[in-house]
């Protein structure tokens, strides 16, 4: 890096790309032309702070510019790169004391984070293997192949206490040990990159920002279990991640870090990519394996576990992207280091995709044991628009809601389960006082009943019936009996469904029923109105709502309180958005 006066690092994760970061990159390239190669423009992976994207970072000054637009580039080059002055207006402003912050470490969003899996994201160019190598890349693989036996590798991973980050939470070292000990003429190590929870993008960001860390870990896992073939199962909806993976594999092969006789150790390892069609159930490992085999993506009963009989009937270890991203640091820094981070039975860190009604939407990595309150109110910067926190959903469509009362629960696999939710793969969706919990549950159930593979009865028909009851309730056509039916069905599906998808599908309903029974009862007793209403006290009679109502159900004279005809209202919410005086009351 020392050859250049400055490095300009531009986030090229999917969300910043969607906000024109490609154009920013181009603009920088054009602007620095004629500066005798003093500056270098680099694209990096996700910085995590997506709410503030696109993000541009200048090294070695370590200045962090937010919400950059292509038209800002000229100013950054002229003012910062040439004159050495910071562009104040593009610095992040602390929402509490309105102070402009230059360095990312000063921001509350980053202060409580601890980055293991995301260690290189935002620091290196994911399309350049040399940068990865400069950050200790492939050292762990070298160490494993030249100094360690497969048993040593399994032991260190086992001792570290690393558990599967895809949702199951099974001990990774144990999984590898089972696969290592299972006899087979051929073995396979698979990376599960079928990230499917609505709103979750942890795995995508890792693959876009630091693909080599996953490839290296797969090779290490392959060595540990005795597999010479690694297979990447990634959903086709992640084109950028796929592209970067392909580049990374090609580069690693060219450098001899994948292929035959790696590090002269006699160990051969190749990786191929298989694309999934985006079925949620294919994240379940047996379904994933069937999909890879060209069969219908549906799960089969376990046992037998893939570690005994997996891909093509051979011993197979299926691990998640984030799990792999933890492997190399464990090898290099030791199991004690890793197990010193985190909670009693949940070691290390966890990446969450923080989304919903929270100020600092983005990707956060925190030590296990951090409380939800810290994540939402410190890292996340609290609820948007100063609204009241209502609940947070973890574990995506398989998890449940957590309320104010449990916000001080430390995040670990067991504690989250005890309060009716689960760790899941890391989706974290924050809800405020305006959110209707019955609608939220319906949204998730709609997702799972749609994504059910249709194999077993409880999931195929049961989730559909639950959804129908929720529809009945929200259409104000249900009754109190429906609430009992929902509970009975939910508990039965949890107890009898074939795979994890079905066994957890009722969770969003059951947990919202547990914490917000009054909202369900309001629907069941038909106390809830379907329409929007106007608070006559607050309405100033501006007619803004009348003008936007698509069904003309609002009447009233100028400067007099308006009225909504509740029988004609279609609850589209247009009036709510149009009203500047908070006079519209949601149903």
């Amino acid at each position, binding site marked *: 890096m020392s050859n250049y006066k400055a490095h300009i690092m531009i986030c090229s994760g999917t969300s910043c790309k969607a906000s024109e970061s490609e154009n920013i990159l181009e603009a920088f390239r054009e602007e620095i032309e004629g500066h005798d190669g003093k500056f270098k423009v680099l694209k990096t992976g996700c910085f995590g702070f997506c709410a503030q994207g696109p993000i541009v970072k200048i090294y070695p000054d370590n200045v962090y510019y937010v919400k950059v637009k292509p038209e800002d580039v000229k100013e950054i080059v002229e003012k910062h790169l040439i004159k050495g002055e910071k562009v104040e207006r593009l610095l992040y402003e602390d929402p509490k004391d309105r102070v402009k912050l230059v360095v990312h470490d000063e921001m509350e969003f980053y202060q409580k984070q601890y980055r293991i899996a995301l260690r290189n994201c935002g620091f290196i160019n994911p399309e350049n293997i040399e940068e990865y190598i400069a950050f200790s890349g492939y050292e762990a693989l070298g160490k494993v192949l030249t100094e360690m036996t497969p048993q040593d590798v399994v032991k260190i991973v086992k001792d570290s206490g690393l558990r599967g980050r895809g949702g199951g939470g099974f001990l990774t070292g144990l999984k590898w040990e089972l696969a290592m000990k299972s006899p087979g003429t051929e073995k396979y190590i698979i990376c599960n990159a079928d990230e499917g929870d609505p709103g979750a993008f942890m795995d995508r960001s890792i693959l876009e920002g630091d693909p080599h860390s996953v490839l290296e870990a797969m090779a290490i896992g392959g060595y540990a279990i005795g597999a010479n073939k690694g297979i990447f199962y990634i959903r086709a909806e992640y084109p950028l991640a796929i592209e970067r993976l392909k580049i990374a594999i090609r580069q690693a092969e060219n450098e001899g870090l994948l292929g035959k006789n790696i590090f002269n150790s006699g160990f051969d390892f190749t990786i191929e990519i298989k694309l999934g069609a985006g*079925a949620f159930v294919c994240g379940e490992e047996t379904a994933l394996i069937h999909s890879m085999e060209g069969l*219908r993506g*549906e799960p*089969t*009963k376990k*046992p037998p576990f893939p570690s005994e009989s997996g891909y093509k009937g051979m011993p197979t270890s299926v691990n998640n992207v984030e799990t792999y991203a933890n492997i190399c640091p464990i090898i290099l820094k030791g199991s004690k280091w890793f197990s010193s981070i985190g909670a009693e039975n949940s070691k290390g860190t966890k990446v969450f995709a923080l989304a919903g009604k929270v100020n600092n939407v983005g990707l956060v990595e925190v030590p296990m044991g951090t409380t939800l309150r810290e994540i939402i109110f410190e890292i996340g910067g609290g609820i948007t628009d100063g609204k009241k926190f209502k609940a947070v959903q973890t574990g995506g469509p398989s998890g449940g809601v957590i309320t104010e009362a449990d916000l001080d629960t430390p995040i670990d696999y067991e504690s989250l389960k005890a309060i009716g939710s689960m760790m899941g793969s890391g989706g974290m969706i924050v809800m405020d006082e305006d959110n209707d919990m019955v609608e939220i549950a319906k949204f998730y159930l709609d997702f799972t*009943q*749609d*994504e*059910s*593979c*249709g*194999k*077993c*009865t*409880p999931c*195929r*028909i*049961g*989730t*559909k*019936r639950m959804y*129908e009851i929720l529809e009945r309730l929200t259409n104000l056509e249900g009754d109190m009996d429906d609430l009992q*039916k929902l509970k*009975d*069905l939910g508990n*039965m599906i*949890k*107890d*009898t*469904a*074939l795979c994890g998808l079905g*066994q957890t599908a009722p969770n969003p309903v059951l947990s919202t029923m547990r914490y917000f029974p009054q909202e369900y009862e309001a629907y069941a007793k038909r106390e809830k109105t379907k329409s929007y209403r106007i608070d006559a006290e607050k309405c100033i009679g501006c007619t803004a709502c009348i003008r936007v109502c698509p069904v003309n159900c609002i009447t009233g004279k100028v400067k007099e309180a308006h009225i909504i005809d509740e029988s004609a209202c279609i609850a589209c919410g247009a009036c709510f958005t149009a009203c500047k005086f908070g006079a519209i009351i949601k149903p």
Partner: protein
Amino acid sequence: MSIIKLSINGMEVEVQKGTTILEAAKKVGVHIPTLCHLNLEGFGIVNQVASCRACVVEVEGRNTLVPSCSEKVTEGMVVKTDSARSITGRRMAVELLLSNHPKECLTCAKNLECELQALSQDLGIREIKWEGEKMDYPLDKSSFSLVKDPNKCIMCRRCETMCNDVQTVGVLSAINRGFDTFVGPAFNLDMDNTACTFCGQCVAVCPTGALTETNDVGRVWRALHSSEKHVIVQVAPAIRVAIGEMFGMEAGSVTTGQLAASLRRLGFDGIFDTDFAADLTIMEEASELVHRIKHGGRLPMLTSCCPAWVKFFEHQFPDMLDIPSSCKSPQIMMGTVMKTYYAEKKGIDPRDIVVVSIMPCLAKKAEAARPELTKDYNNNVDLVLTTREYGAMLKEAGILFNQLPESDFDSLLGESTGAAVIFGTTGGVIEAAVRTAYEWITGEELENVEFHQLRGLEGIREATVNIGDLKLNIGIAHGLGNARKMLEDIRDGKSQYHAIEIMACPGGCIGGGGQPYHHGDMDIIRKRQEAIYKEDRSKVRRKSHENTAVLKLYEDYLGEPYGHKSHELLHTYYIPREKI
């Protein structure tokens, strides 16, 4: 094998390692209901997808209920099949299935044979709490053989197991997702546009009315009631050892006499036996084999009696159409002889003759409709009923089959030998051919006509029969998956056989897709096979070339076996077909 000790409902039980909870429970007299599960013991056919969840039980230490049909026992396992949790889980699974099932039991083809209906009755289900939207797909009536009603599919996947694993035809698989999932061909193509062989094994194992045969009973009634038509009938060898089951008779009862009597009571104008045509087939097929051996023709020669097998090789091995015998199947030979020789003898215009077949088979329906098997736009066979349809017809007519006095088939096309009867079981066609080929090749009389080395129920069998100096290597396969293996060996040049017999259905025609439902009890198939051999032993003549009526047919009409007229009337050709 090691022994596993476990407890079921508080009772200690010891079983072999590898036993399922379901099997272990049986040992202590505990019945656990099942629906998707199917184990055709002795045939190596198991459907263990654990999808219906009607058999779930509680196992101590497990978070969820487990499917007893597929969960293997472990040492010290504590199982409760009768806990409130187990019973609720099972009951709700069945209630959910019923909530998405048409309530048309009274008019359903599977009424009183439906396993979902029986399970609902066993569990005492009197109301369905979870009513809601139901699947609403159109019926597939595209083929001549079967009707597919997706709305009755409960996703047990038994048909898939038969179609994919056993028959290796690969037409059926789950399509769509979630609530909309059902089993059907890729892209939900019409069955008629697929590589389906119409073997009917999917129908034989479907627990509900999702897969049934097309019903031709009404058409047969109309023909019988028409005064202008001369309606004659033929019955296949495997019917006589199975139809009694529909009238409370023991499996394995031989009912040839009652069968003839029942047909007479229905008022057919001529009552004939497909066994006659089976003897005729042997005359042609044995001649063809001898001809191929003597003149260095293509070997091995494969039998061609089974229409599902014929359609299978047309789709799957279109490059090998010269291997099967060119003989028409006995059903079609019989129809041809009826519309030519018989018509001429009786002085009836063939267009006024309606030939009805009663077959153990669904593929025979499609076979009868094959365009190349017609003559002057007149079908050789007009209407085909399965054993089940025929049984239903008798019930409708009030004919108490089991109480009928025995009767005989009509002369002219009614005589048959023991060689023809055994066409109904796997191994039978080739044994019949060997009985004739032996005498023709050696010129000596065959003393012991029973070739036990060709018999049995293993999927693939082989034997060498000494015929004079010739060591005749014979292969036998039943089930199309086994047939595929034999054909692949031929294609790879590994096959050492002279002749191979293939039947599509497990057990041969006795296990045909149109036979009375076995509901998973394969002892029924074994008893039918024993009955076939019993009928063979009871026959005075046991070699096809000794059938005097067949010999007279050659003398009066056909001339030489495998001769010019035979080629014109009794042989056919095959058509390469698409693989989808």
